[in-house]
């Protein structure tokens, strides 16, 4: 099977987040009051995004926020802590930085930023960077979701296979016939083949367990 065809669970079409949707984006700027902050805010407003500002960094972020810009070096200078759910981020994270030293880069990679903007703020490129980051973030979320579904499906298949095997051991039946029995049971009890399988297996295991 070609790689492109091996994703049986892709239900959403690969719809990119387009420039026409730009003005629906809610942006939160995590920055203290300063000229760079004003320049960034002004440009995002010029583009037409909904912009809010917050300082110091909050402990968590509302799901309403689509993009968080954080002035990383201001956070460090002010001895603040930037809390971020690296494993399951609720928004796109864009870092605004002064330094491009190895240590600083390492920190950005740890934070898993989706894009980086340098100081001083130059308007050109912010719009494109922002849209690319939003698209990458959403694609990652979709892939993550698909992965979770695949994982669940795999586990369900294993349970059904084992239940089929159990049925085949009790009487000389083919795998197909065993599956037919499971399916009929599921229909009778108005449940899924997986649930029936799992019940059969737990029945088998129960005496051994205690």
């Amino acid at each position, binding site marked *: 099977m070609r790689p492109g065809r091996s994703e049986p669970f892709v239900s959403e079409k690969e719809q990119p987040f387009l420039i*026409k949707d730009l*003005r629906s984006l809610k942006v939160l700027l995590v920055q203290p009051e300063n000229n760079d902050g004003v320049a960034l805010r002004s440009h995002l*407003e*010029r583009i037409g995004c909904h912009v809010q500002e917050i300082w110091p960094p909050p402990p968590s972020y509302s799901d309403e926020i689509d993009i968080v810009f954080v002035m990383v070096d201001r956070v460090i200078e002010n001895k603040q802590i930037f809390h971020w759910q690296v494993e399951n981020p609720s928004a796109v994270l864009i870092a605004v930085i002064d330094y491009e030293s190895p240590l600083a880069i390492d920190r950005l990679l740890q934070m898993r930023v989706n894009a980086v903007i340098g100081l001083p703020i130059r*308007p*050109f490129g912010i719009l494109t960077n922002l849209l690319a980051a939003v698209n990458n973030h959403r694609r990652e979320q979709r892939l993550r979701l698909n992965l979770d579904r695949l994982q669940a499906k795999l586990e369900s298949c294993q349970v059904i296979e084992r239940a089929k095997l159990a049925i085949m051991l009790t009487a000389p039946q083919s795998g197909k016939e065993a599956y037919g029995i499971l399916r009929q049971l599921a229909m009778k009890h108005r449940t899924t083949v997986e649930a029936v399988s799992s019940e059969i297996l737990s029945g088998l295991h129960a005496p051994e367990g205690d």
Partner: protein
Amino acid sequence: MTRDHAIQIGVLFSSSGSTSVTEQTMLSATKFAIDEINGGGGIRGRALAPIYCDPEGEPELYQQQAERLLTDSKVRVILGCYTSRQRKAVLSVLDRASGLLCYPAQYEGFEYSENVIYFGAVPNQNSLFLAQYLLQKEAPRLFIVGSDYVWPRESGRIMADLIKSGGGDVLGQCYLGDDATEHEFDALIKRIEAAKPDFIFNNFVGRSNVQFYRAYVENELDAGQIPVASLTTSESDIKEIGAAATVGHITAASYFATQSNRSNLACLERYRDLRGARPDANMCWDAAYTQTHVVAQAMRENDPDNINAIRSGILGRSFDAPQGRISIDPLNAHCWVWPKIGIARADGQFDIVAETTQAIRPDPYRTTYAMTEGDEPLMQPSLSASDGSYGLRVRR
């Protein structure tokens, strides 16, 4: 006023090359405004000393000459450029040498630079109103044509969105290169004729625009059959094309020389008094004239040698321009302008058939164009209850 104490200013318009037709009107307006400024005592007693260049329409020459102006001549402000490619070429130099460009042409938007003030219209100030006008015909069918570069394609995309959202349709789109032959234009016109659209939306510029209207006439078409709508075909273009070929066609612009408002009449009269003839005025003439005076005002009230002081003096400033009272938006450095619809006459001038009731805010980063957006605040201030045509007030 002593010459050595003069304030030098760069003027970057082509008097030769493919874009010279329009740029010469900008140059003429700039010269006129500078004469008025110096005639009125200059800038705090110092003369405004223009350094004129001829970049021949070539982006590389705009860049080289802008660099020379900013580094060798110690110019801080440049008035100039017509196409987006010319402006983009100058942008990098402006940033390095901290110069300020005042740009008098309409363009496609999606730009903001701390080194540029934009005096021309962006699509929410012209395309939107042209679409409103075309949509007065029920479900209009358009054929979109133009030169093959960023502005015409972007302009075509916006118009297609607007017309479709208003219940109309786009029958075809075609873009031709600058080197397109007579034969190609002839083939294009025949293709359009076969498609039978209600309007042609034309985004050809410079020489191609002349070729387009000539091919149109040679195929025995006229505005009674398929009117051509444009954002660029102005009085000076018509002079080049020939008025006979453009009669009855539609142009949306922020200025027409036939405007009867006091500031326009007074300005044209001052020009006649000074030059002894009528100016070859069009939307670019108006914007070039306006920007020169706005810069002079900002210089008078702030340190005329300090680029940041001049820039902040320009932002938020208003001026009684020939087109109407304009102002410079402090957030995006673009101009609030007065959209109008003109129909070309036999004498090469325009009858103004619709206009807005107030200046329209520039929204250079507007990404969606649809006629159905009730929540779009830009249309609200110009809503005219009498005829229900959104922002346009139709003259009868």
